[in-house]
């Protein structure tokens, strides 16, 4: 899509617009639309898109034919990107909840200026920090932040305010995957890439409705399967869903029984002599974890009693193959069938597929395995299968943890926007990691707080306990997306607590916020996302921002100007750095790069505001963390020229598959494979001894049904963007309760009837759906969570994997009843 300078000058009508978005990707087409490359706002697939702008408005988008991920295809959500920024109730100005001109938590959101909003926020932050210390403030961020937005938040909170109370909504999404990677491989993120689809013989889904949740990757799966006879697709799920439409076989298993199924498959592999003994002996260790770990509930909860390792759930010991073999031998076909509800034949079909040395296998998973009270364990267990057979880091052989959000990888995980993390997989509890961060960030020794902060669920509990009193939410909707909503709503409205929400539209969270900050959206800022195949993709600002909206990056950097280091650091730290006296957090974290990175010659509101190319400055500093440590990223300018690059990018070359000799520059010649994340244990991946354990809350006499929550194709997350696009809204206008036809009939419920679903924690009323896209088994109901009018998370339980701290949104106990239309709640 290149245009010559002569053509550019000819097009005088659009010349000004072209100048502002910059060449070479921007190109002039007919009807005055200027096209430029960017990425989709939505899922972790990371499709490339072309954004069409006319008169400072995004008027059209299309799939980018040059993007390797999607080759010009989008899914329905991606095809409506041009409408997501233009809902009429888009937030315009900062809002403060007021009555009679005064701040009042019981008041109404009233227009204010940025100055007024920041004044109030500054007052609240400083009062909390002064009276209770920095751990009384917290920030809840996002896997939908751009990379430098997450990085700015890390610097502001951890280096500036010196609290680790920073956690992203990715905690609800990928934390178990991360813990799985760290415990199995010692380093985060997939070793394979999307190209593994085109080499696979079998593609096996583990609790992931890929057809609706990663549609473009599923279209690549469909292409692979339909174009090559012999390629199989297996859909393992707790619910019969659309991924079954083209599947060779569907396996409906009981919730939580994936743990037993995976162990059975490993047992079968061993018993049938299908272990790749050379691979295992060269590249694997065996580890055994502790099992009395509870469910991440509050300490007083009955399920936490007697759980000696509830606070040390990661404990482990090194064992050997013999012990592992004995451990999994308990998982016979009979036992796995009993726990899972699958037949022994079905189990054998799966096991044989994995055991067959001639079949290349890609296992895909997302929320079914991650949003799980044993999420870390089940991630380990599926890696076990691929490690035992050596089906890993090899074209078509890929245990593939798919990412939900567009930049949970690029931002939350790689930048480390977690309560326990620093960039590039480093952690606050390790002195050598803190030292490295302090060196790169030019901080006095001891700045970084070694104490792990509040992870997501802990943040809400701390708010409830009034230990955290100021919460700043950016690019997330916690008061719709956290499990067990009721106590958190109350905590938000407690006079002791102050809630700031940066968002683009009114939402469930703005309903309880004290301050609302109108935020710039994806194509209104220069950005970068990292997708589920380690592909970092950049884009330029496409349209000028209207009204008083500002990007998350601007908000963090601008707000940080209000804090002098000497007000938030100790006397000892200031004494170590007398040169920093009088400096603000802004000066030391951001502003010190002013001279080094002049503003670019294209549209960039933050560069204009701060007087330098702040995004580039943050990027060039950030990549110092990962370079040479397996997380190498290329220089900033390179990404604006490419359709993304998969890291590690070493000597200018991206890496398709990690840990594999010849593809990964970190693997020495002659090694074949190297799991160098576990450098200290001989570069070996860990095969884990992890048992089956039941869910935190199973159906019982009073609440006889499983509630599973999830999504639909047409809506993204909490629906704030997609429900404001008529075509997406009309496709699925509200959340329904999917019910089994026989159970519906027994309760006198017909399709469309109003039904009440209730758990011990709350209830919703919604329309029943019988025989729709999700065909639930008996004993289960399914409700998607995109609808703020059907707050299904009032029912869910805030039980987590005790290792990853990720909430299990897929399993709790409910009861179902028909509601007379017009009946009071």
């Amino acid at each position: 899509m290149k245009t010559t300078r002569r053509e550019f000058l000819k097009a005088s009508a659009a010349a000004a617009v072209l100048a502002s978005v910059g060449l070479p990707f921007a190109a002039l087409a007919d009807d005055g639309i200027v096209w430029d490359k960017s990425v989709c706002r939505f899922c972790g697939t990371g499709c490339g898109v072309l954004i069409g702008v006319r008169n400072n408005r995004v008027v059209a988008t299309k799939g980018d034919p040059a993007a390797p991920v999607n080759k010009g295809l989008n899914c329905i959500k991606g095809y409506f990107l041009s409408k997501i920024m233009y809902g009429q109730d888009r937030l315009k100005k900062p809002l403060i909840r007021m009555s009679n001109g005064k701040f009042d938590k019981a008041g109404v959101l009233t227009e204010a200026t940025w100055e007024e909003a920041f004044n109030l926020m500054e007052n609240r932050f400083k009062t909390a920090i002064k009276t209770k210390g920095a751990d009384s403030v917290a920030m809840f961020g996002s896997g939908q932040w751009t990379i430098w937005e997450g990085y700015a938040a890390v610097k502001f909170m951890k280096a500036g305010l010196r609290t680790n109370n920073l956690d992203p909504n990715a905690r609800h999404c990928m934390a178990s995957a991360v813990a799985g990677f760290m415990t199995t491989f010692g380093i985060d993120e997939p070793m394979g890439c999307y190209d593994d689809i085109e080499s696979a013989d079998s593609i096996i889904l583990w609790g992931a409705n890929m057809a609706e949740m990663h549609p473009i990757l599923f279209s690549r799966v469909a292409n692979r399967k339909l174009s090559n006879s012999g390629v199989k697709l297996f859909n393992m799920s707790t619910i019969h869903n659309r991924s079954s439409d083209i599947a060779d076989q569907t396996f409906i298993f009981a919730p939580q029984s994936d743990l037993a199924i995976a162990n059975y498959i490993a047992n079968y592999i061993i018993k049938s002599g299908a272990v790749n003994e050379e691979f295992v002996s060269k590249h694997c260790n065996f580890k055994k974890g502790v099992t009395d770990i509870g469910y991440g509930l509050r300490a007083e909860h009955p399920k936490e009693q007697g759980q000696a390792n509830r606070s040390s759930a990661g404990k482990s010991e090194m064992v050997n193959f013999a012990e592992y073999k004995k451990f999994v031998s308990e998982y016979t076909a009979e036992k796995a069938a009993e726990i899972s509800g699958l037949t022994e034949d079905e189990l054998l079909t799966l096991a044989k597929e994995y055991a067959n040395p001639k079949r290349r296998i890609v296992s895909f998973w997302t929320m079914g395995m991650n949003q799980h009270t044993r999420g870390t364990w089940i991630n380990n267990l599926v890696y076990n299968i691929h490690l035992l057979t050596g089906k890993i880091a090899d074209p078509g052989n890929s245990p593939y943890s798919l990412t939900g959000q567009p930049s949970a990888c690029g931002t939350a995980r790689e930048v480390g926007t977690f309560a326990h993390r620093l960039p590039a997989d480093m952690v606050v509890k390790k002195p050598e990691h803190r030292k490295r961060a302090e060196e790169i960030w030019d901080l006095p020794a001891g700045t970084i707080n070694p104490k792990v902060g509040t992870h997501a669920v802990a943040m809400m509990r701390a708010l409830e306990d009034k230990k955290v009193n100021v919460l700043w939410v950016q690019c997330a909707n916690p008061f719709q997306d956290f499990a067990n909503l009721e106590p958190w709503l109350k905590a938000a409205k407690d006079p002791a607590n102050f809630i700031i929400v940066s968002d683009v539209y009114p939402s469930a969270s703005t309903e309880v916020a004290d301050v609302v900050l109108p935020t710039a959206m994806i194509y209104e800022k220069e950005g970068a996302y990292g997708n589920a195949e380690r592909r970092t993709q950049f884009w330029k600002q496409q349209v000028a921002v209207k009204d008083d909206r500002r990007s998350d990056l601007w908000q963090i950097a601008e707000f940080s100007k209000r804090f002098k280091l000497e007000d938030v650091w100790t006397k000892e730290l200031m004494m170590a750095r007398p040169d920093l006296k009088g400096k603000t957090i802004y000066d030391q974290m951001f502003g010190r790069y002013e001279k080094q990175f002049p503003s670019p010659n294209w549209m960039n509101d933050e560069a204009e505001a701060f007087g330098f190319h702040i995004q580039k400055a943050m990027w060039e500093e950030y990549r110092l963390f990962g370079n040479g440590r397996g997380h190498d990223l290329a220089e900033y300018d390179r990404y604006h020229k490419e359709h993304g690059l998969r890291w590690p990018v070493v000597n200018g070359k991206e890496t398709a598959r990690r840990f594999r000799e010849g593809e990964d520059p970190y693997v020495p010649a002659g090694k074949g494979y190297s799991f160098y994340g576990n450098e200290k244990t001989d570069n070996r991946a860990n095969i884990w001894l992890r048992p089956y354990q039941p869910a935190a809350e199973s159906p019982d006499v009073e609440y006889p049904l499983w509630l599973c929550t999830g999504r639909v194709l047409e809506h993204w997350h909490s629906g704030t963007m997609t429900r404001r696009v008529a075509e997406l809204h009309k496709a699925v206008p509200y959340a329904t309760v999917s019910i089994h036809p026989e159970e519906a009939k027994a309760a006198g419920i017909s399709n469309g009837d109003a039904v009440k679903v209730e758990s011990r924690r709350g209830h919703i009323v919604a329309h029943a759906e019988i025989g729709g896209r999700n065909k639930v088994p008996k004993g289960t109901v399914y409700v998607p969570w995109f609808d703020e009018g059907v707050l299904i998370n009032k029912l869910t339980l805030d039980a987590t994997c005790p290792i990853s701290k990720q909430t299990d949104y897929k399993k709790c106990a409910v009861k179902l009843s028909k509601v007379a239309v017009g009946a009071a709640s």
Partner: protein
Amino acid sequence: MKNLYIALLIPALLFAAACTPAAEEPQKPKVTAPEAAAIKALRSNSMFEESALADAATYSEEQPFGSQRLPRAFKEAVPQIPHSIEGLSITAESNECLGCHEQGKGYGAPEVPASHMDGKQLSNARFLCNLCHVPQSNAKPLVKNENDKLAIPAVKPKVETE
């Protein structure tokens, strides 16, 4: 009764006037009802109450043949399905959408465009129509969208006569 009401009202107004807002807090005129209503999530009641159940929406029951095309959101936007898809399915073995939408059928259904083709066949990457094309219910939009004005009216289908 009315006189008593006024008698109570005047002191109340005087009392209110005497209480000025504190100096440190931002001063703003009292918000009028329309402004307050504008900052509203897509639900009917407070977060602590049940939201009113959405009106039941129905999908078109029109049969595919003869159904009218829908407007497109913008030029070359992905078209949506105006007819019922009840009983129509896509499996690995067969894609029933092609029964009408395959090139050269002559039913007046929008034909699978060149972009979707792999030679003379539908590309297998485009086999799952319902990743992009979905039926539309009669649900009213929740909020207006500024880009609705870019919509392109539906094109009348061409039906070959025998």
